[in-house]
């Protein structure tokens, strides 16, 4: 057997064996990994739209996915919006929930971020940041309050920035405002339709 044909055969064989082996691994783990991913989304939706029982993905594009959620009576509660925007270092991936009229933000949660630990990364911190986002009026674009003030002093559509991490706070704000605008225009254009029966 010539050297060349041995080279070809060995490498092909190694490839085939590894392919076989990996397919097994892949099949064995696929379901679980998929489930993990779904659970993450599921949990996030429940976080941002309290009391959500079921959800339906109604629109998807890059870095912008919209779900409608229903409560245990099957009524539509609102939207959960999965979106991402550029932060201080890298993308900030977040999800927030609004009511069906898009007048109110229920809650906000950060799914992935690479902001400066101890500083920008406080956007994941409930006390420092997220709590200001609860039940905000979003019929107008939200505003950032800097330097931060006491929660009682915040206006209906004002949220506090994080001291020293204005950029990260602004990034979240800008992402949310942009997503809201996009959602509204999508609804206006009829790309997204919400009818009670449209779901399940």
């Amino acid at each position, binding site marked *: 057997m010539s050297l060349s044909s041995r080279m070809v055969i060995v490498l092909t064989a190694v*490839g085939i064996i*590894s*392919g076989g082996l*990996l397919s097994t*691994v*892949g099949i064995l*783990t*696929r379901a679980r990994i998929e489930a993990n991913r779904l659970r993450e989304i599921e949990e996030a939706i429940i976080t941002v739209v309290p009391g959500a029982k079921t959800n339906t993905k109604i629109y998807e594009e*890059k870095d912008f996915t919209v779900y409608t959620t229903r409560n245990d009576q099957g009524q539509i509660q609102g939207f959960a919006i999965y979106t991402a925007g*550029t932060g*201080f*270092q*890298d*993308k900030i991936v977040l999800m927030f929930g609004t009511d069906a009229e898009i007048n109110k933000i229920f809650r906000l949660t950060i799914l992935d971020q690479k902001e*400066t630990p101890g500083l920008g990364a406080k956007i994941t911190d409930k006390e420092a940041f997220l709590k200001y986002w609860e039940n905000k009026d979003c019929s107008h674009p939200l505003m950032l309050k800097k330097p931060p003030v006491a929660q009682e002093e915040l206006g209906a559509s004002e949220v506090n920035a994080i001291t020293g991490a204005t*950029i990260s706070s602004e*990034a979240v704000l*800008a992402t949310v405002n942009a997503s809201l605008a996009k959602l509204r225009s999508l609804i206006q254009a009829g790309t997204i339709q919400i009818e009670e029966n449209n779901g399940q």
Partner: protein
Amino acid sequence: MELLAIFISAILINNFVLHYFLGICPFLGVSKKIDSAVSMGLAVTFVMTITAIVSWIINHWILIPFNLEYLQIVSFILIIASLVQLVEMFIRKSSPPLYQALGIYLPLITTNCAIMGLALLAALKNYNFVETVIFGVGSGVGFTLAIVLMAGIREQLDLADVPEPLKGAGIALIVAGIMALGFFGFSGMIK
């Protein structure tokens, strides 16, 4: 604009070496002389660009359609390995001085995390084809920038009274640390 952002970000903000710690081996190994650093940088940029193209094609034309994402690692590394070997043989044949200068680090491009990291990150970030290519070129330029700057500094440090235990990799890592501190200045530039 989005493309420019990816490009600048890959060079300055999320620099492969200084932020992702990718390509540290050649970064430490081939940064002793500016000339070889430049050729190493160019070699890496070149391989990165090709890798970006080929890995995107494999990923989007074969792996994703057939639901084989779990073969990413194996297939990417195979592409890179063969690609590098081809480049190596080519350089060895066409430019022995260049081959001498890069020495054993050319085969090390195979195990250069920067190349593999590029393929993986591009897949992870879900870039489209053009974005992937820009990302590849930008990362290569970023790597080149870092390694050439480092080589300049190390050439100067050859003439400095660096404490014996820190000579070589130790001081290079400290310099890299301070460089990374400096590069923080660019944070937040891409909005």
